[in-house]
């Protein structure tokens, strides 16, 4: 039993940390967010050069062959820097779907381009009505000869506007919320009939709603098995939830550190506010929340690495804890920063907003606790 990182993992972590310290301070980040594209191509090229874009991919496609722990150490640092470049959308989601479900041809086509930084991707899984149920799919893919005709609308697509290619979930069979009958398609963003509405979220992310009107894609654009898209999506979302957990942990860690630092220096009533016992005990509570969240992150990562265990309960537990600890920690961070905490100028609120969006992504704490309960206490519990 050990919780040590390998030398390679330590190097990876330090490499991201160094980039953020040297080239991605908060002001720089805000400029990136405010820019036309909402990301920096130059940064993305740096990510490619430093090998970060290759981390989770198989060596045969030029990847680093990394596992969940490698992804974790990077995501935690991305969290600390509030990095908005679409690593999560392109590498974790889009790349993850290709790695887990793509044909050899698809992998050979896309993965090397992702690694070299020339392909940005997005995963369009959400619809207006679907909320947290990824099986709730109205977008239709109708067979037409050798091709499929896609019709529908996907919403809040992370990195939607910058992506060259979208992976779209569409219904090829079954009713609106059936588990069976969902198929994934690789759709070029510039395909005729694809229309984007680009907008911003409070955490600095650029997202898009994607309207598909009789978009024609060939059968070779099917990702994975026809009608069997759901298990593939679920597997990638499991990986992604752990990656988001790591990002959240980086943020919580940073929020606690900044709040601690602030209370050490900020004076009220003639003394540093960190000397007030009531505040000290509250900061002990946020420290404990963060440690407990870290434990569940490690637990989920270890579960992902073990091949014979089903990591589902651990991942649901992680999402629940990230939600709870996140609210606790950003709530205290804003409150203890007082008036400064509610200004747009300070980074505290921005960390909070990213945590909130992480919580909403792939289902909030209540949603995952419901799944945890069903798995653990339901009559059909394993």
């Amino acid at each position, binding site marked *: 039993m050990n919780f040590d990182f390998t030398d390679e993992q330590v190097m990876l972590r330090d490499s991201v940390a160094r980039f953020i310290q040297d080239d991605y301070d908060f002001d720089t980040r805000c400029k990136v967010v405010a820019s036309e594209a909402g990301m920096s191509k130059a940064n993305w090229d740096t990510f490619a050069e430093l090998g970060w874009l290759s981390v989770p991919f198989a060596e045969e496609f030029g990847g680093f062959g990394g596992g969940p722990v490698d992804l974790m150490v990077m995501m935690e640092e991305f969290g600390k820097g509030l990095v908005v470049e679409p690593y999560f959308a392109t590498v974790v989601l889009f790349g993850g779907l290709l790695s887990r479900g793509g044909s050899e041809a698809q992998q050979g086509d896309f993965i090397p381009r992702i690694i070299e930084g020339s392909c940005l991707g997005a995963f369009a899984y959400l619809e207006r009505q679907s*909320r947290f149920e990824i099986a709730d799919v109205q977008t239709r893919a109708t067979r037409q000869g050798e091709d499929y005709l896609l019709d529908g609308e996907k919403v*809040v697509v992370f990195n939607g506007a910058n992506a060259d290619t979208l992976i779209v979930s569409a219904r090829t069979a079954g009713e609106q919320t059936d588990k069976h009958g969902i198929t994934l398609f690789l759709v070029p963003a510039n395909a005729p009939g694809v229309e984007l*509405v680009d907008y911003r979220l409070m955490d600095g992310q650029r997202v898009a709603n994607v309207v598909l009107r009789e978009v024609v894609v060939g059968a070779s654009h099917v990702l994975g098995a026809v009608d069997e898209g759901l298990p593939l999506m679920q597997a990638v979302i499991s990986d992604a939830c752990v990656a988001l957990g790591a990002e959240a942990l980086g943020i919580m860690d940073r929020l606690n550190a900044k709040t601690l630092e602030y209370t050490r220096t900020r004076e009220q009533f003639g003394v540093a506010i960190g000397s*007030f016992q009531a505040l000290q005990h509250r900061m002990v509570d946020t420290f404990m929340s963060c440690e407990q969240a870290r434990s569940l992150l490690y637990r989920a990562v270890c579960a992902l690495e073990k091949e014979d265990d089903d990591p589902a309960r651990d991942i649901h537990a992680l999402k629940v804890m990230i939600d709870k600890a996140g*609210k606790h920690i950003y709530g205290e961070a804003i*409150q203890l920063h*007082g008036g400064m905490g509610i200004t747009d100028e300070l980074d505290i609120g921005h960390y909070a907003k990213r945590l909130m969006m992480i919580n*909403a992504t792939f289902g909030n704490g209540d949603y995952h606790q419901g799944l945890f309960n069903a798995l653990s206490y339901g009559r059909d519990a394993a």
Partner: protein
Amino acid sequence: MDTSFSAEDLAFRDEVRAFFAEAYDDDLQARLADKATFREAVIDWQRRLHDKGWIAPNWPKAHGGAEWTPTQNFIYETERAAAGVRDVVPFGLKMVGPVIYTFGNDEQKERFLPRILRSEDWWCQGYSEPGAGSDLAALKTRAERDGDDYVVNGAKIWTTYAQYADWIFCLVRTSNEGKKQNGISFLLIDMHSPGIKVNPIVSIDNHHSLNEVEFNNVRVPVANLIGEEHKGWTYAKALLAHERTSIAGVADSKRALAEVQHFAAREQNGGRFLIDDPLFQQRLSDIEIELMALEYTELRVLASVAAGGAPGAESSLLKIKGTEIQQAIQELRMELAGYYQGVLPTELAQEVLGHSFGSDARQAFMYGRAATIYGGSNEVQKNIIAKAVLGL
């Protein structure tokens, strides 16, 4: 013990409802919602209230107020919030007005009160300072006597609507001797005076309502001093208790909670409405039950104030619980909005992006973070209760 309404109370309720239905019209609401017309629309609305005689429910009749009973206040607030009618801007009517008629001289009363009632002056509040925060008495903005004027230097912060204001009421330091609470004076300052600079602060909700106000050798006539020099802390303290009581916002929270319930009956997950989810119901009732309690806590405080007491440390309880409830409702609405909680305002309507209230939820939640900080942070309120109520 009796909380039922008399026939007169019920008649009053009907009158309030009818008035809102007529006077708070669509055109007015549209102008209030538009940043460009906001200021004039607020003044317009407040003049309608003035014409009705309801602009100052709790001012003494001698000064143009209505002297409502606690029950009338309760009915008015409940109906106001239920109808989605915005409250008056408090700085003139609820804050400096009472200070002026309680502690001001006759000349000040004649000069300022009628203009406040008719919304001819827009007031803002100059209490907090950069660096002073909840330790209000540590303020450093100084006013030095020079002939018939004070010369004011320093800065105030978190000043809501300073960008619209004609006047600001300030706590300023006129002496550095003795306890820091002594040596503070209460000064009315014309915002159009030379040497005043207003710096906008964008807050966490991406809006601009807060400001920093700088004073560089601003000359203020001594005639604008309220009460005695160095005694301003006493006047401010009386005011703060009133402010805390109104921060509780029970009626507005009732409306906000009803809205959450309304949306939860329309928001689905996997084909099931959230209002039917037992866990969501539990979150809702956790808040609603606290709010039902706070409603009666407020009534108890109002009744005891009406029976002759000034609101004391119990107002701190109202402030703490009231703001906690507000934030809990805002948080629940964010949860309800799911992915859409993050949507920033665009030129597109919210519905175009796929959701009707995500962006509103975000703004309310984000700005709502301030409620536990301003008006004396909730931590300071706990210190007040520990000392004044528990005797610790």
